[in-house]
């Protein structure tokens, strides 16, 4: 199995070949779907890699212990991202294309959950929202002050797409830089301080931009 994984890793980082961003990351493509299937069955190697660090990157320094966030549905990140190995960017699809990572629409949940685990109480709750045609009012966990403008797409580009040694399947390790081990949580909690010093530690170590007007404007 790990052989197949390596094959895939090789495909993403094939030297000299530029693959369009959407195709490389998109799980909607056939290759992406295959990657999902592989990821589903490759829990063991994934778990072994959990402690590994991202190549060509120094993560920011700092920890924080955030409060529990009472979400309308207790969304289990661990079941989705860890046990089933679904790529973060499958649901948070805007992370690679825009400033915000995006909360998936209920239709995306229903894409799987109209057939999977329909008897579970949380899914019943979800189906209720879906039938009422009403979005669950998710609460924001990682909030920045209004004078800070963080861009997801550029960070994903720098650490994932411009980083040939990191296969796209392991994007969650990059997400974990700022979001902590979401994979091990049920409802997401804030684990990193997200202060300016925290950002700075990473920008300094990775030669990020240092212009005030990059983030504050």
């Amino acid at each position, binding site marked *: 199995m790990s052989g197949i994984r390596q094959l895939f890793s090789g495909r993403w980082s094939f030297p000299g070949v530029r693959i369009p961003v959407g195709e490389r990351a998109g799980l909607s493509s056939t290759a992406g779907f295959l990657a999902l299937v592989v990821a589903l069955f490759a829990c063991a190697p994934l778990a072994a890699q959990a402690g590994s660090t991202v190549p060509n990157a120094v993560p920011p320094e700092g920890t924080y212990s955030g409060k529990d966030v009472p979400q309308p549905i207790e969304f289990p990140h661990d079941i989705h991202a860890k046990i089933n190995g679904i790529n973060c960017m499958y649901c948070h699809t805007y992370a690679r294309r825009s400033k915000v990572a995006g909360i998936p629409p209920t239709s995306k949940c229903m894409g799987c959950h109209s057939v999977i685990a329909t008897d579970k109480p949380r899914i019943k709750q979800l189906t209720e929202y879906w039938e009422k045609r009403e979005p669950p009012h998710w609460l924001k966990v990682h909030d920045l002050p209004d004078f800070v403008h963080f861009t997801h797409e550029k960070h994903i580009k720098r650490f994932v797409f411009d980083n040939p040694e990191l296969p796209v399947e392991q994007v969650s390790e990059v997400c974990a830089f700022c979001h902590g081990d979401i994979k091990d949580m049920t409802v997401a909690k804030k684990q990193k301080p997200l202060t300016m010093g925290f950002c700075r530690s990473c920008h300094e170590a990775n030669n990020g931009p240092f212009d005030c007007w*990059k983030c504050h404007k």
Partner: protein
Amino acid sequence: MSLENILTDWSRYRKGLEQGGFHDYEHMWGMVIDLDKCTGCGACVVACYAENNLAVVGKDRFADGHAMHWLRIERYWDEPDLGEGRVAEYQHHGASFLPMHCQQCNAATCEPVCPVAATYHTPDGLNAQVYNRCIGSRYCSNNCPYRLRYFNFFSYYESSWPAPLHMQLNPDLTVRDKGVMEKCTFCVQRIRAAKDKAQMEDRKLTDGEFQPACVQTCPTSAMTFGDILDLHNPGKGVENTRAAALWRKHEVELGKTRQTKQDPDLRGYRIFEGLNTDPKVLFLERVREV
């Protein structure tokens, strides 16, 4: 730019015009305003208010000089004397208009006086104002010869956008609270968005990809915006922008306190360039019928 960086690079950032100024530019955004084309309609002012979340302060505070217009149109009269016995609020003829916004000086007088380095020069050649760093000492405003910095004496946002008007606020930049200085940024949020887009596509930013709101709105195209880096070395690889072409055409050079042009038909001038501020906004003089 952390504190350590500021301390390390202090001399680099604080270099005067005589020492050659700050030179590590990636871009140098500049502007040309043709006063012959300007009709004084004020569309640019409205555009600026809409784009940059400028507070509407009301008549009384306006009279107190608290207006937050980053871009203002100044009026001048050719014949200030209306003649004997003629009393009028304004004249019917002879008005000329001067749109004034931050001149983004290369040797800005506001920068060295800031006690907390909230205003500094960016590698884009912009004169930046970092709101969350500003402590409201107002030194910069007092040291600006153009009087183009505006101070939030009150929390204007509380009354400026009563619901549902707050929905029109631009999310790409901060809504400033009281105690903070602000000024024209050449619509830095647009510059950054265009630059981010170019970086995502692994290419360089090209001329005309974005415009500040005032330039975009001007109905007579009196304003031209562009990169004027390497103004004097057009072959150096930086795009030969329309703005740079106008600067060259009117023989106005950066880094000078006095221009040496001989041809009286060349209309270009910079405001207060004798003060050694090296402004990056070029005005083209109005041609009058005499």
